[in-house]
């Protein structure tokens, strides 16, 4: 089992070789299988201060939200439009 990670706009530049169509697969190698979204972001090298929006399995979440194997986690900087 692994965690699927999706990145938006400038956060993509923080992970070399990121492929937007497939996202990033994260395989927890050690420790507990339950992480927080913030810890996961730190492990893949995202600057936490630039993360404004977190969604876990398409639900609005935050950096303290738990993440389990099999989850999908999406990170966004501050974005807006309309």
């Amino acid at each position, binding site marked *: 089992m692994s965690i699927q990670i999706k990145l938006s706009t400038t956060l993509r530049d923080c992970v070399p070789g990121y492929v937007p169509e497939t996202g990033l697969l994260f395989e927890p190698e050690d420790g507990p299988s339950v992480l927080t979204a913030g810890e996961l972001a730190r492990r893949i090298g995202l600057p936490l201060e630039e993360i404004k929006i977190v969604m876990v399995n398409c639900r609005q979440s935050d950096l303290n939200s738990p993440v389990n194997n099999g989850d999908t986690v999406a990170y966004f900087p501050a974005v*807006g*439009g309309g």
Partner: protein
Amino acid sequence: MFRFLRVNMATKSCVFEDIPEEYAGLGGRALTSTIVAREVNPICTPLGPHNKLVFAPGLLGATNSPNSNRISVGCKSPLTEGIKESNSGGQPGGHLAKLGILAIIVEEMATEGEWWQLEVSKDSAKLVPSPVAGLNNFDAVNKLVEQYGTECSYVTIGRAGEFKLTAASIAFTDRELRPQRHAGRGGVGAVMGSKGLKAIIINPEGGKNHPLADEEAFKAASKRFAKALTSHPITGKGLAEYGTAVLVNILHEAGGLPTRNFTCGQFEQHEAVSGEMMNKVTKERGGEGAVAHGCMSGCIIRCSGIFPDAKGKFKSKWPEYETLWCFGPHSNIGDLDLICTFDHMCDDFGVDTIDVGVAIGVAMAGGGIPLGDGQAVLEAMQGISDGTPLGRVIGCGTATTGRVFGVRRVPCVKGQSLPAYDPRAVKGVGVTYATTPMGADHTAGYSVTANILSCGGKVDPLKKEGQIELSRNLQIATASVDSVGLCLFTAFAILDIPDALAAIVDMLNAKFGWKLTGDDVVTLGQRILSTEIDFNRRAGITEAADHLPDFFTDEPVPPHNTTFDFTPEELQTTFNWIKK
């Protein structure tokens, strides 16, 4: 120096008037809606002689405030049969303000078949026969520029407006004289067409910025407002880099990206039509393409990019998120170049990208166009300009198209199509769709901010709690922003940076010598909404119209499998200051 310009299309008289006392202190949407409510019989035929078409820059037009040169267009809408305010960027708002013209009021109708254009300059205005009738917006403006020059700005309708199609828009030229900023919603272009008015040419020569009661105070407040805009990550950077299209991926992820006519909240090919892709393709192709492009003088947000074709030539402006959505996921099309072609056709023919794009997906649902067939859409779209039966149906928008093709799911409120956020997965904006006097309109109270974007607080998009209050507050604030002449995108900074609103209030006070407080801005917003709702009531649109089509309450939408579960009684608490 401040005047109204009243234009009678029957007698051809163009008269400058002093501002009547009852309109003092109003601008933009506050002014158009007040004039329409006072002067237009609510039960009149929208495309008849008793309707009026009003153009008004905002209160901070012709000042050095950033992003304050938008223009409001008001009338009784032929699409919703209620009051309409549709606003736009481009240059004409700032030019009219500089000439001291706070409103142009167009009345009556020319003889059917005649087309006129209105020449407006510092001290004169006259109607002359229009040589550009029959042309679409880009050709019309090119020809007008040959005659009147590059210093003027231009307001035009395309052939859709001439045909009086109920999704016809009014085009306003941008800084490069391209007619691609539009008052899109509600069929305002059809009203202009019904009057026989093809174009307005505004010569700003001799115009100047408005006098300020306190120049130093204005300068200081304007600087604070600019700082708020540049320091906020959305208005300072995000919108310039990715346009409003940045929302494609985030709405997909949130399960609120309506796909194949609102039957799903996610689109498999979302990445292909995303803001990230648009940014990448624009940079790779280079040439005439541009990232970070402002549509009007004084814009520091610069969201309006230019999309180049494969050879680097101009193809269209960057389509807005809503345009990408309705011609993309909603119509099962994942081809960015094709969507940009549709966007440009809408700008050229002069139709609302939302009501027409949603009509395309609805026609697909009804079997009128094969699902996802881009070539068939190209032909149907061309029919809008050619005046084919299918083109006229689609050009009349979603509600008409749904009726013609016998469609079960017609996503409209008060005859106007829903934009790009599924109200079952973004419930706050659903409240706005249902209740705004404009017919379904995201910009009337953009609850997507707190529901999805974590801007101005957080409200869970899948739950009911807090949504009515959120929509109410945003609808009030938006009515005020629309009256000041500010681009609505300044609201991202206003919601997060307290000094931004204070700076706007300080600018208004420094310009007019007023003593407004933040509370007065709320009162103004409430007053505008009350005026608009009262017009609708007199037009026969009651509270019973404040609801979504029942498929939104009947059918759960994946991936969250939620419904829009507000009762009519709950929705009717939105405007809680209005006595029944």
